[in-house]
Every structure is written in structure tokens, then in C-alpha cells.
């Protein structure tokens, strides 16, 4: 509609490109030779444990830190030597950083008034923006009169009113309580869809990353372990770290005893023998690590369902029952090896009468479990 927003050319460069970014603090490599790009209008998350370097990466993109090596390009333009107040990037801070000395309207209009936009124009655009984030009459309110979710929306409005190429979000939901966080997750996704701005979101909460993102980069020790859609990360993790970090997983360490196509059979030290799908190259005799998702395995009081389906199965004894509605699970140990497993309970309520110490059978389709050659630097 306006000249500024009409930048959509046919061969638009990615909104964010990073090439060979590194940043060290002393001997610590916070960001280690990262290259990636983020498509226009997408929701990109960087997921990693605390201390993995994701905040450093975000601050490099925002311009608060300069990388030791490498380059950031935003909307195709290099950001080398461009200070944060001149970049087409805005950031939503972890604790939102709304200005308590200003009203909501002044907060949202802050960036516009810094650009020298006329007062009437600011008032109009702030009003429009607040309406778009469903806070139409909040202009004159004080920041401390808002609820947590409303503050969040003001923080996003304050950035989006400047029509940035890229919006960076630094764990903005971290300080909220669980219920509100679930609610805001949905709101964030809807806001992003409505505005179409490219979002780069960092979080340590895998559920936030999976729910919100078009693509997720899993970060560990300054590097990306894997970049992919949430489904890729969940169903086809490329490294043991991703398998262990994204979603719940049962890990079994052992040695590969037999390989049949992409099917690896491994034996753990304690004597458990399971089969799984090989990810990457695995050779007989290699130390390997297999992951079985709690919902991939199924439980039964008898072995019959597994023998009928031709699946391997194991005898186990229940250690504890973890009832949590749809996320209910049992903790049990396999009887021969003593290996512990967490297995999801069927959501139908079937098997809800299990008791501790009861003997059950469990089994899983080896094709749905994954196996990696272990001994890599990233084994966690």
C-alpha cells in the first residue's frame, strides 16, 4: 500500500543471511562458524539449552555485538559496521523492556518519534498498531496497568510499528506463567501470520519452538546441530543431541551387533538387545546410541499383540505411574537388563488401571526408533 512496504520484488533475497559468524569470549566459542539464511515472512526459531550461544547470536544480528569473523546481511544488505539504531531490525527483549516512564502510546510511538515522524502521524499509526494487536484503548494507560499478555503485545507493537525487515524475539515468554505462556504462543503465531514480518525467535523451550516455527535450528555449543521443520527435528533427528533435546526420548547406549539395511541391532552393556533405524553411517562393533520415543513404544498386559504384529517385545515391571491427562506415561524397567524406559499411556484411558510393580509387555516398531554412531563430540 505504501511505498515503503512495496519492496516485494520477484527475486527477493532472504531477509536474514549469516555467513561464517564466529564470536569468542576468551577461550569460549559462543558462536562457532555459523552460516544460515531465513526466508522472507517465515518464523525461524533457534532452540538450544542455556549457554549454547543463542543469545550471543541474536545480539550479533541486532548489532549489539560485532562478530569476530563472518557477516550478517539483512534484506540483502551487509550490516558490517551498522549500529543497532540504524538496522532494519527490532528486538523484543526477554523482560520486554517497556519504558515505565512512558504511557503505552508513547512506548509504541517511541521509535517513530526518533525517526522524526510528525506528531499527528505518530498518533494515527500508534492507534492503528494498537488496534491490530487488540489493545485499542490502551494509548494512555501506564505500562504497569497492563497484564503480562498485554505487555507482550505492546512490546511487539512497539517494534512492528517501525515495519522492520526482521523481528528478533529473545525468549519473550520466559517470564510468564505456564497458562499465559500457552495462550501467548498461539497469539504470537497469529500475530506473525497477520503481519507477515520475518520473526527470529530464540528459546530453550522446545515446545515453543515446535509450535511456533516454520523452521527450527537446534543450537549446541555455538553450532547448529540441525536446521529443519519441526517435524524433521522430531521424526528424523540428525544427531544424538537433537534426538535427546527435542521431545522426550529414551536413550539406550550399546554396541552395534548386526546391521541389516538401515536396521541396526544393538546390545547394551546390561544385555538389552533392541533394533532401530540407523541415522548416518553405523558399522558393526561401533559404539552406538539409540532413541525410542515414549509414544512410539506401546504397552500391553500380554505379549500377544506384539507377536501377532511380528514386533520385538520385552517383559517389564512398572516403577511408577505418571498421570498427566493426555501426556500420561509410566516409568518401567526391562526385567532382564534393568534398563529404564518411559512409555506413554494410550489416551483412550485403556490401561489406566495399571498398578506399580505390575508385570507388563512393551514393544515398538524398530523403524520408528533411531540409532546413531556414538562417541561423537555431541553425546549428551
Amino acid at each position: 500500500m505504501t511505498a515503503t512496504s512495496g519492496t516485494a520484488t520477484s527475486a527477493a533475497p532472504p531477509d536474514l543471511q549469516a555467513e561464517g559468524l564466529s564470536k569468542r569470549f576468551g577461550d569460549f566459542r559462543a558462536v562457532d562458524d555459523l552460516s544460515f539464511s531465513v526466508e522472507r515472512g517465515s518464523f525461524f526459531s533457534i532452540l538450544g539449552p542455556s549457554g549454547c550461544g543463542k543469545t550471543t547470536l541474536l545480539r550479533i544480528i541486532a548489532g549489539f555485538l560485532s562478530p569476530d569473523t563472518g557477516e550478517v546481511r539483512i534484506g540483502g544488505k551487509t550490516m558490517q559496521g551498522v549500529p543497532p539504531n540504524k538496522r532494519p531490525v527490532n528486538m523484543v527483549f526477554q523482560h520486554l523492556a517497556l519504558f515505565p516512564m512512558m504511557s503505552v502510546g508513547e512506548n509504541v510511538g517511541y521509535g517513530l518519534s526518533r525517526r522524526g515522524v510528525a506528531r499527528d502521524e505518530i498518533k494515527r499509526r500508534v492507534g492503528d498498531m494498537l488496534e491490530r494487536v487488540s489493545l485499542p484503548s490502551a494509548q494512555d494507560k501506564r505500562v504497569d496497568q497492563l497484564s503480562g499478555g498485554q505487555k507482550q503485545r505492546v512490546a511487539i507493537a512497539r517494534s512492528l510499528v517501525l515495519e522492520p525487515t526482521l523481528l528478533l524475539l529473545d525468549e519473550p515468554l520466559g517470564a510468564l506463567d505456564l497458562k499465559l505462556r500457552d495462550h501467548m504462543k498461539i497469539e504470537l503465531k497469529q500475530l506473525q501470520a497477520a503481519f507477515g514480518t520475518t520473526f527470529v525467535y530464540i528459546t530453550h523451550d522446545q515446545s515453543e519452538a515446535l509450535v511456533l516455527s516454520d523452521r527450527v535450528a537446534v543450537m549446541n555449543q555455538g553450532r547448529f546441530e540441525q536446521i529443519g521443520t519441526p517435524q524433521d527435528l522430531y521424526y528424523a533427528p540428525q544427531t544424538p543431541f537433537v534426538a535427546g533435546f527435542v521431545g522426550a526420548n529414551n536413550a539406550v547406549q550399546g554396541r552395534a551387533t548386526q546391521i541389516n539395511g538401515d536396521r541396526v541391532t544393538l546390545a547394551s552393556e546390561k544385555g538389552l538387545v533392541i533394533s532401530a533405524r540407523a541415522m548416518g553411517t553405523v558399522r558393526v562393533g561401533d559404539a552406538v546410541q539409540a532413541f525410542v520415543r515414549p509414544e512410539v513404544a506401546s504397552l500391553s498386559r500380554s505379549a500377544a499383540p506384539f507377536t501377532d504384529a511380528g514386533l520385538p517385545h520385552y517383559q517389564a515391571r512398572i516403577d511408577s505411574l505418571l498421570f498427566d491427562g493426555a501426556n500420561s506415561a509410566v516409568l518401567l524397567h526391562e526385567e532382564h537388563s534393568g534398563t529404564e524406559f518411559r512409555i506413554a499411556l494410550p489416551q483412550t484411558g485403556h490401561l489406566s488401571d495399571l498398578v506399580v510393580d505390575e508385570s507388563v509387555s512393551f514393544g515398538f516398531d524398530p523403524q520408528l526408533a533411531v540409532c546413531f554412531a556414538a562417541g561423537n563430540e555431541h553425546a549428551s
Partner: protein
Amino acid sequence: MRAEDTSGTRDPARMLLMLLLAPALLWLAALILLPHVELGSLSLRARVAPRVYEPSLAQFRTFIDEPLYWHTFVRTAVISILATATTLLLAFPIAWTIAKIARGRTRSLLFVLCLIPFWVSETVRTLGWMILLRESGVLPALLVRLGLTPAPVELLYHDATILVGLVYTSMLFMVVPLISALESLDDSLIEAAYDLGGNGWSILRTIVIPHAAPGIVAGCIVVFMLTLGNYLTPTLLGGKNSQWFTEQIYTQFITRFNWEQGAAFGFLLLGLSTLIVWLGLKLSGQRFGEVMQQS
């Protein structure tokens, strides 16, 4: 019955509170309230014959009729305001460095450096300035050696010298409330403002100063009152020409033995400082209670 019970349990707590407050209340009553009541009554009477007094406003009339007095009065106020503003300008970067930039040991070292001058008594400190600034002192000699002045110049007994001494004496009382005000400013607010397009000056104006306003005003009130009521520094550094209002009070009490006039001057000074502090609070839009929590 029940009411008696509760009052019975409350009494010891009340007693304790009164006991804890007693020293402060005694101090207030004996050293501040009583002398002021006495001074007030002194200032409002005139001696008509030996040991015979009658109520009168003669002292205040003298103040108005004698240009030297109100000239000194206004001059004291103006220099005090100037000294307060200068102290603020100098203390702000120091407080900013200590609160926001320095970390760990550097930070405590810087703070101790601000504190060290106060280990020496004010008299000795001021005499130190005199050694540095007098005609045969260190600084004029240095200026001659550098070829900047042909002969040693007298650096003492100027208004600027008084200002330097007052600022030096007041620095700590400005730095401390400023540090506590700036420390409580979340760094991410500054980053957010910068991220949204602000620059150093606009962030200082729109984020830092509004946040630190109670601390700034608290520091200014303390420094202004200390400066206005200072006797030693203006007298020693300004010499005979210093014309500081506290000197007039001293003269009335001690030299002229005119306690009535001295008391009137004392009350005028009290009124002046109250008026200026009130004006300062009005102009900066701060509330006294809020400001005093910061200092």
C-alpha cells in the same frame, strides 16, 4: 473483655516502638525543635532597654533596608545553585561509570576514590586547596613554569575558587544517590531504546534522566542545603570578599553579639532553602517523599 486482651498484648509492642524511637525523638526535640523555637522568639523581639524586650519585626526590617544583607543573601543562593548544578554535571559521568560501566574491583576502587577525601576533616581539605591555590602556592608556580603567566597569580579569593571548593566538598553527596538511581535502571531499557532508533543524547533525555530523576533531585537537595549552610569553605577560600550569608549570621551572633539579628537571619536562610527546594521539586515534577527514599 476481649478488647482488653488485645490491648494487653499490644502494649509491650507499643512500648518497644516508643523505646526504639526515643533517641531519635529526643534528638529532634532537644537539638532541632527547641533551638528553633528559641531562635524564633529571639528573632521576633527587639531590645528597648537593658534586659527589656518587646515583640518587633525590626530585625527583618533591617534586612530589607540594608542592601549588603540581601545582596549577600541573593549571592549565596545563586552561587549555591550554581555549585549544585556544577556538582550534578561532574557527578553524573562518575556515577554512570561506577553504576553501569565499571565491574567488580574497579567499581569498588572508584567508589573508594570518591570517599577518600572525606577521611580528612573539611578544615584540612580546604587548607589543602589554599596551599595549592595561594599566590605562592603550587598551581600559580606551575603556571609560571609552564610560561602561561609571567608572574604568580592569586587564585584564592575569587568566586570561582569558592565554587571549586564547594563542588569538591559536595561531590560524594551527589554521587551516592545518583549511583543508586542509575543502578536500578535496567540495561535492557537502554538497549531497547537504542534498538528502536534512539541515540545517546535522546536516550539520556527520554530514558535515563526520567528514571534517575528522584535520585538527581535527592542529590541536588542534599548538596544545595549543605552548600547554602556551609561556613568554612566560603570563608577560607573566599576570604574577606566571600560575602556568604552564614558569615553574616556568625558576625551577628559572635562579633556583634546581636542574637536577635542573627536569629532573624537564620530564619531567613531556612525560608530561602525551603523555598528553593520547593521550587526545585515543582519544576522537576518530583514528590518530596519519593525523592527522600532515594537518598
